[in-house]
């Protein structure tokens, strides 16, 4: 088994770093996923994850893309700002969430593309003798294990812990809002705060997720675990556990595939999750709750 040799050979420390980073990302997204799916925020995940592309481009032209911290900070600001901007724009008269996301998603891609072009073609933000300090497009979009180091692992585990604690701490206002935002607001729940906090959390999770799964696939981690869990159970805590469990399980299985066949990690993880969702259609026909 080629995958197992990574964990016994000279690369063992790195292989474990990758596993822990992926577990952290998958647990954090598994926690948020049920809320994302039941609140129909899947598209927001898309919008926010694509903002990471703009962040990467901006980091490149600012000359900070070479350092992990600089890159994380700039993409973090972009993702969280996009999350909050979606929340703010979506509340304006005449603009719904979907329009806000549509506008911000393409704007992010355009900003990222223009910045990266300026960076590679005209040398903005890089020394003249280096062709580029940012990873290639493919690893930006679909993830790359080579990019994952101890800093990414720590960020990922830290975010997982933070998201889990925050979600547990605010679970009652969060759930009240998720079930019925108008009713929750009427009951005195600070719904604007809850919604913005959740979107900001999505932004933070996406920032750490893009390093492992890439921009395009980061949002899949926010959607698929919740969708799987909601198809399997209708008990609240079972759904929460299933969401985290399927997310973490898929991360491990996906990484195994990635190591074994040298496949892109993000794509492998997402395909495992998609297969799990497919399996729920075959194994548990839930016609009663289709909507």
């Amino acid at each position, binding site marked *: 088994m080629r995958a197992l040799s990574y964990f016994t050979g000279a690369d063992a420390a790195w292989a474990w770093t990758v596993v822990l980073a992926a577990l952290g990302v998958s647990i954090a997204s598994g926690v948020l996923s*049920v809320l994302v*799916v*039941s*609140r*129909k925020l899947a598209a927001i995940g898309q919008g926010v994850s694509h903002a990471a592309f703009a962040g990467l481009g901006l980091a490149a032209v600012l000359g900070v893309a070479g350092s992990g911290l600089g890159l994380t900070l700039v993409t973090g600001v972009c993702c969280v700002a996009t999350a909050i901007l979606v929340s703010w724009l979506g509340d304006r008269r005449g603009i719904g969430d979907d329009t806000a996301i549509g506008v911000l998603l393409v704007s992010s891609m355009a900003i990222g593309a223009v910045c990266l072009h300026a960076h590679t073609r005209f040398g903005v933000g890089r020394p003249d003798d280096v062709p580029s300090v940012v990873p290639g497009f493919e690893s930006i979009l679909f993830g790359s294990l080579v990019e994952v180091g101890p800093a990414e692992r720590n960020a990922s585990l830290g975010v997982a812990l933070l998201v889990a604690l925050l979600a*547990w*701490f*605010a679970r*009652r*206002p969060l*759930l*009240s809002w*998720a*079930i*019925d935002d*108008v*009713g*929750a*607001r*009427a*009951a*005195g*729940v600070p719904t604007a705060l809850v919604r913005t906090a959740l979107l900001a959390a999505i932004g933070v999770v996406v920032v750490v997720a893009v390093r492992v799964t890439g921009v395009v696939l980061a949002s899949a981690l926010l959607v698929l675990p919740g969708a799987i869990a*909601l198809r399997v*159970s*209708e*008990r*609240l805590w*079972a*759904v929460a556990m299933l969401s985290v469990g399927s997310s973490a399980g898929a991360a491990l299985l996906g990484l195994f595939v990635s190591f074994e066949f040298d496949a892109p990690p993000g794509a492998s993880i997402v395909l495992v999750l998609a297969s799990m969702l497919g399996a729920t259609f075959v194994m548990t026909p839930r016609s*009663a*709750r289709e*909507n």
Partner: protein
Amino acid sequence: MIAPTDEPALAFENVRFAYPGGREVLRGIDVRVGAGEVLAVIGPNGGGKTTLLKLVLGLESPSAGTVRVLGGEPGDARRSGRIGYVSQLQSSGDGALRRFPVSSRQLVELGIEARRFGFAGIAKETRERAHRALELVGATRLADRCVGSLSGGERQRVLIARAIASEPEILALDEPTVGVDVAGQAAFAELLRTINESLNVTILLVSHDVRAIAAGADVCDRVMCLRETVHFHDAPRGLTPDILAHLFEHELAGVFGGVHMHALDGERADCEDRHDETTGGD
């Protein structure tokens, strides 16, 4: 059942309301609702009923005049949990409620502790309150069922249990009988009476469905007809077909106005012909 008290539960004084840049939705609203009273507000869609509820909840502020709820600012009463509210979205069963995996018991408990942040579990007192509320609405047997799997009438009971679980002084219901059949509406009226008598809660019931009001006529102390302004506000027996026809004339005009009945008949005949052709083999 009206309890004698100095301070009315709700007091509207010469209230006007317009959304920013929009036409006036409400004007000349001068209404007092006594504590423990059951008031049904009926009117056509767009007549200002939901806006009236938003003013009571303090989610909107009047353009002119004052709204007092339980002797204070409307927002204060809502934030301190003195108003129980069932939104139209919940009643109709749309929205996340249908997708969300909560049991009836959890929904009611969440209603009580919606504003509570913290790591601790559900308080014992909350569990007891939730149990009492479910018992009062006759939904104990639904406690462990997923809310998304309940029928319209069952869901309505659970939602009302949630709204009354915090023992509010006012219960506001927006279109509570949407999707409930006539038998269900009679049962609903009975439920309102039970709640009103057991908890002495002021009930504000908003509906555009005249049948719902008719089913609850025995329970309502007063009916208020609302279309921009108050067209009628008295005991339900004073309500006449003329008042209702006047109230809903715009909706009726929307249905029949501008359409030539002959043309309509012709179209209907065409449809029936085509229907016969396509279903001829059945």
